[in-house]
């Protein structure tokens, strides 16, 4: 039968081994992989400014990016591909809540300046270039007319 000290050893050994493995893999991911990707070299000041705006306004509190965020409003990783730059910029600069008359669900009317809206667009364009291992998946059946 297992004794208490064996159980303790199992816990301590497991914790140490798997923590070390995880830190090693994190290092590999960060330094050897992500840092060398082409899209890591295209993070321009505009993309960074866009990311700040994304966070300062908690856009993730309704939307998601890379599938992370809330479930109230659309996934935005590929939004520029789906809608185009002009459409996205327009809704970001809109002085009235977007969606009020179309979908019923309202977006906060941020009324961003042209520069801020452009920075957010750059951030989305950048996000669209990241290699996400196949996410978002292409729908199996494509219904005519849907974006």
């Amino acid at each position, binding site marked *: 039968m297992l*004794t*208490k000290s064996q*159980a303790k050893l*199992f*816990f301590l050994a*497991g*914790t140490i081994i*798997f*923590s070390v*493995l*995880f830190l090693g*893999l994190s290092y*590999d*991911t*960060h330094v050897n*992989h*992500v840092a060398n990707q082409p*899209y*890591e070299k295209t*993070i321009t000041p505009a993309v*960074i400014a866009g*990311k700040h705006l*994304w*966070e*300062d*306004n*908690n*856009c*993730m*509190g*309704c939307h*998601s*990016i*890379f*599938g*992370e965020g*809330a*479930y*109230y*409003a659309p*996934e935005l990783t590929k939004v520029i591909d789906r809608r185009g730059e002009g459409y996205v910029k327009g809704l970001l600069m809109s002085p009235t*809540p977007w969606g009020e008359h*179309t979908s*019923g*669900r309202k977006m*906060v009317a941020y009324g961003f300046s042209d520069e801020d809206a452009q920075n957010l667009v750059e951030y989305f364009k950048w996000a669209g270039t*990241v*290699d*996400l*291992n*196949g*996410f*978002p*998946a292409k*729908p*199996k*059946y*494509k*219904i005519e007319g*849907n974006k």
Partner: protein
Amino acid sequence: MKFKTQKIAYWFFLSALGLLTLQIIYGFIMGFAHMGIDGLHGIIPFNAARAVHTNLLVCWLLLGFMGSAYYIIPEESQNELFSPKLAYIQLISFLAVGVTAVIAYHLNWWEGRKFLEIPRPLDYLVVVNVLAFLYNILMTLFKGKKQTTTALVLAMGLLFSALLYLPGMIWFDSQTLDSFYRWYVVHLWVEGVWELIMGGILAFLLIKITGVDREVIEKWLYVIVGLTFLSGILGTGHHYYYIGAPSYWLWIGGIFSALEPLAFLAMALFALNMYRKGEKKHPNKAALNWTLGAAITSFVGAGLLGAAHTLPNVNLYTHGTLVTAMHGHMAFWGAYAMIVLAIIAYAMPNITGRKLYDNNMARYAFWLSNIGMIGMTVAFGVAGVAQVYMERILGVDFMETQKEIEPHFLVLVLCATGFTTGVILYIINFFQHGKPTDEALVSE
């Protein structure tokens, strides 16, 4: 209660229940918004409601954990709390930071990263606060007569939670790295170090309630927390599938996260077995219900419903849909909310001296809240699966899909009403115990 300073836990538990109430109110705001009723949008937009809902959840659970530590550590180490004054200062400042954050969210001031919305300057205050808490607890523990395994596991969980908060405070220009390190906090908390806290509280409760020998209980506690880290640390990979991290995370995350339910299964079997083995049947039925309930519901909500979407080929379709919200609710409820409600139910009669061990109100509170939560989980689940099929497989537009699934949110709100009724009964029952008093001291 054996030590006077254990009374301090009362104020933490009271505050926790207050924040839980507020959390639920914001849950309703979001439930209605999903139904298409968003009249509050102008003052409380969805992102504010959501940040308040999830942050209050984390805050009240942390208060619950701290209260548990203030109750358990003196008793386990046979020693009065190192500094009661520090504990009160720490409680008041924690609440002040929490309330400031909630107000800030309504004013569009935050650090919009999921679950870590607290504005950066407040983050530092949280760190100072938690350091004060840990200092108090660790001093009590090491000045005490004994350092039991239960107390050490609990303290270790709390200490690691504080350390893991730090990687979440680093700024990254890259969304990929931002997300990568955000999971050091979010995942390694709930599927790692918080399980130590839960295990520690569970072990303490089982020792008290079942009367099974401490050595046996603590042996299994080691096995459980061993399984947690064995699976849960590399299991972090299930959040690295689709964020721009290398593809080896698909199989590492898939394999190890698929093992995570083992720790929860072990916890459930452990609790049930100790209950069967125990000769002493403690009269506090409410505490027993919540304790066994936590062990079982966490296995269903975290273990089974987590495993349901953890494999990469499933997660590709469910990632970031209401399926995740389904799992998130029952997992947080079963594992962490219920264990906090269990320790409160156990501690209250001991702190106040009023032995309301077994009454109808406590029974209804338990069953109504749990049945309500099961209903809510089903409602989120049906909405989520419908969303996955329509949006991700048939390619229907996001907003069109959301319109189709609105009725499920009516079901959600109805079940949430049952759930809330249960929570209200729990809170009434809490107040019926009255205030903490030194007359409740027993020497044993």
